[in-house]
């Protein structure tokens, strides 16, 4: 059974790392703020979500697992809001100039 959970961790964390990598490449390569933001938020939301799911089977007890879930939720929230904020700022500065 441990082997199953370990395999699950490896698969989910690797997939999460892949999304982070793809997001970073996008952040470096995409031409303007909005497309870069698109790449970044995908990496944050999906990548970190997958890594958190992958780490769940490794948590020592239920409390640690719950903390991981809470961190995930807060990060989702912060990521989504800051993405919107940056996009709004960009949108406004484009239309005012």
């Amino acid at each position, binding site marked *: 059974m441990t082997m199953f959970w370990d395999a699950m961790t490896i698969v989910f964390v690797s997939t999460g790392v892949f999304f982070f990598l793809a997001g970073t490449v996008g952040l470096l390569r995409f031409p303007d703020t909005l497309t870069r933001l698109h790449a970044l938020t995908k990496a944050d939301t999906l990548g970190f979500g997958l890594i958190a799911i992958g780490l769940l089977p490794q948590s020592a007890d239920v409390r640690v697992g719950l903390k991981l879930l809470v961190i995930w939720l*807060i990060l989702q*929230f*912060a990521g989504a*809001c800051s993405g*919107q*904020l940056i996009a*709004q700022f960009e949108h*406004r500065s484009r239309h005012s100039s």
Partner: protein
Amino acid sequence: MSMLPDLLLVMLVLGAALWTVAARDRRSSVIGFIALGLLLALVWMRLYAVDVALTEAAVGGGATGLLLLRACARLDSIDAGKPSAGRTLQLLIGFCCAAMGVGIAAAALGGPDLPPTLAPAVAANIDAVGLGNPVTVVLLAYRAIDTLLEKIVLIAALVGVWSLAPDDVWGGPPASLKLAKASEPLTFLAQILPPVGFVIGVYLIWNGADEPGGTFQGGTVLAAMWLLVMLAGLAEPPETRRALLQYLVVFGPAVFLISGFSGFWLAEGFLSYPTGFAKTMIVALEVALALSIAVIVAMMLAGPSARTPR
């Protein structure tokens, strides 16, 4: 193989530091400094110094970064169009900074291979205090005088910020932090996040007794929540002449001083705790200190008075 992540981290830290120094304009330099603070927090994590990592992330990256960004905004409006410092002065400043860096590096690298440490003595006596976190034991029991003076420095810093206010607005509220145009995502964030952040701040303070965490980390999180509410315009910064605000600023250090002096009668001397009550007193002190730190950090970031008092 296990060295590779650390090497990458060190290179990132050096890169961020170089960027901070080399960036042409002030704002980029400050953003580099914030990134450097977050990377340093990761370095402290790798060194198993979780308390320092939390402080670095909250104070070094977060609060100091915001303070510098606000200083940038203030300076931009003051010295627009003025020439920057002369070449000689720039060279002199650079030389002094480099000399300082070399001096610190020499002191750090030139010492004995195994620096003298009091860690075993702390570990042997930790049960006498009754707390589980050795960092808190050192901060509030063995080196309480340092911690006390550190809090008094914070008050001095706030007095420094407040004294930037011109005479005619003295005692009034700091400039509104509200954005010129309301931003819906920011308002949403400021409505949802503070209850969560408040619980996390209290958790960090309470946890500081036995696990990594403590007054500075928790207090800064509380301050951040208050600042978020002020940034979204859901609350205005209070007038700096308000008595309640000023009492809150001195509350923690005052309680610390009183408890320190009570050590003369109740225990062995200044800043020592009566046997058996050490943990109770330290937790009470931490709560009082965290409250003051939260108010001081938030007011320092809100800035000096800028509007006439009502």
